[in-house]
């Protein structure tokens, strides 16, 4: 009997249920800039993974005869570096460490920062206040300064570089996570979930995470660009990755003295950093508008 009553209402709605993600995917694919940026970023990641098969030469093998060969030398299309190693191969291999150093801190900070921010946001009250005030302290440092300060104190090394960058990105991610969670927590479906008798942990898992992780993740992807620049910057300063490993920032550093001999060769590693940074930036912008997140 009740069924008959509702038929008028039901006719109005579409017949096929549509998930949230299919809509996001459709909107994203319409955005040509974002798709192009995604292809570049994907290409760089593939290049990093398959570096040994893609690179024409051994990135560590150099002779002083080929030292600083110019771009366009036969067999060395992008020239050779200050130790006579093939530039193209080093740039390709450099993608491994550079991307690793740039992306990993953001991923770790995403996990830790989300956990802190969601916990603070869901708990509210004084737990929230104390957490956010502590994070404010880290906000008092410009990100470059904080990364270099921690890295400088810890000394050079891949692990120290990762650690300092992770510390830099936790506060901003936690802050975004907190504000998104606080907004979600006030919604009635969270109240309804509480009325079901579910524990805070269950509510966060079943009802909060799905609604906050998307926006937090998009924000985190926007940090990859900054992280790439900072990670390479640390190596550029002599912190982070140490020679003879190929890493774009470090390559920029060691080639700096060659600037009067082969100026454009010396600038090549920066092109890679720039390319990675801008493609992640645009990818993140595209994701944000596809997911309709306002910031």
């Amino acid at each position: 009997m009740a069924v008959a009553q509702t038929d008028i209402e039901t006719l109005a709605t579409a017949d096929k249920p549509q998930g949230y993600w299919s809509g996001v995917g459709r909107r994203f694919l319409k955005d040509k800039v974002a798709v192009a940026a995604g292809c570049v970023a994907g290409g760089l990641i593939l290049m990093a993974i398959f570096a040994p098969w893609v690179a024409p030469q051994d990135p560590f093998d150099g002779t002083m005869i080929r030292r600083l060969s110019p771009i366009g030398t036969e067999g060395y299309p992008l020239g050779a570096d200050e130790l006579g190693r093939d530039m193209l191969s080093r740039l390709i291999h450099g993608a491994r460490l550079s991307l690793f150093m740039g992306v990993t801190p953001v991923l770790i900070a995403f996990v830790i920062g989300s956990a802190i921010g969601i916990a603070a946001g869901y708990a509210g009250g004084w737990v929230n206040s104390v957490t956010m005030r502590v994070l404010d302290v880290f906000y008092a440092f410009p990100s470059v300064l904080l990364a270099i300060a921690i890295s400088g104190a810890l000394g050079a090394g891949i692990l120290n570089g990762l650690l300092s960058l992770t510390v830099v990105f936790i506060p901003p991610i936690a802050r975004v996570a907190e504000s998104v969670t606080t907004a979600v927590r006030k919604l009635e479906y969270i109240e309804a979930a509480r009325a079901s008798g579910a524990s805070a942990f269950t509510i966060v898992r079943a009802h909060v995470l799905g609604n906050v992780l998307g926006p937090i993740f998009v924000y985190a992807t926007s940090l990859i660009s900054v992280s790439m620049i900072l990670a390479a910057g640390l190596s550029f300063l002599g912190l982070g990755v140490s020679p003879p490993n190929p890493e774009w920032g470090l390559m920029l550093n060691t080639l700096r003295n060659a600037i009067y001999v082969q100026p454009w060769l010396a600038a090549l590693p920066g092109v890679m950093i720039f390319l990675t940074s801008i493609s992640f930036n645009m990818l993140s912008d595209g994701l944000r508008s596809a997911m309709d997140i306002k910031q």
Partner: protein
Amino acid sequence: MSDAILSAHNLVKHFNAGGWGAARKVVRAVDDVSFDVAPGETLGVVGESGCGKSTTARLLTHLLPTDRGEVRFRGRVAGTEVPLKDFRRHVQMVFQDSYASLNPRMTMLDAVAFGPTVHGLDLPEARRRAGALLERVGLDPARFGPRYPHEISGGQRQRVNIARALAFDPDVIVLDEAVSALDKSVEAQVLNLLTELRRERGLTYIFISHDLNVVRHISDRVMVMYLGEVVEIGPTADLYTAPRHPYTEALLAAMPSLDPDRRTMEAPLQGDPPNPIDPPPGCRFHTRCARAFGPCPGTAPVPALVGRRHLASCHLNTVKEAAE
């Protein structure tokens, strides 16, 4: 009245409105509210917005912690004598905003199935029962089960919310403005559904609304709230025909009526309710009451029995000299 299924005893809830120490301001959202509900009964709760109806609903369902007072379920204190998790299975709630009260990333079937899984039912069985409940509230489970909240209408969503509450097999459902946001025709359908379900399952409702017509239609008894206090509570017919509190009278007079003879020309209630941060002393209603007299500004009236199960807090009923 120890046979009450749910009762409120001197509930108090004050919200902080800024300031520290002596300058601290509090909103007296709910101030010393007591009442009880008999099994199978529907208690309507009415009042202007900001009178504490919704806060009372959240205190009753323990979604907000009380500052003072207690809620008893079948005579036992909720949260202590009845563990909260059990209490929640017995007392459920349906919210006003049908969209905000559904997780946008959860299908309707899972939204209904979620509650029972919290209480230990395995997911396939919970989903099976959820399907049956969707069917019962008038939604084809094959068609609506896999949908998301934004894909269905407000009336359909509110049916889902009712099904979600039913999934616990509760004794009491608190309906906080549950039909207020719906179109009139849809509202009528949902009200009919609620009436059927009550008969079928012996449910007890606490029906909160600002719409006096709807409350009259569905309630056995009605409670009128003003500025965080109960001013009158009594059987629907008595209260609507012979209100014993000037505020109730004013509310009824302001009610849109289909009967032209009963329409009043002047607005019976002037202005907005006073600020609940600083409620007037004495009877809180005296600043807007057309019949305020001697004791009203100074002494707060106490609830007095004015009929069978009919209480009102007004000096007019108790002080002799006013009766002329």
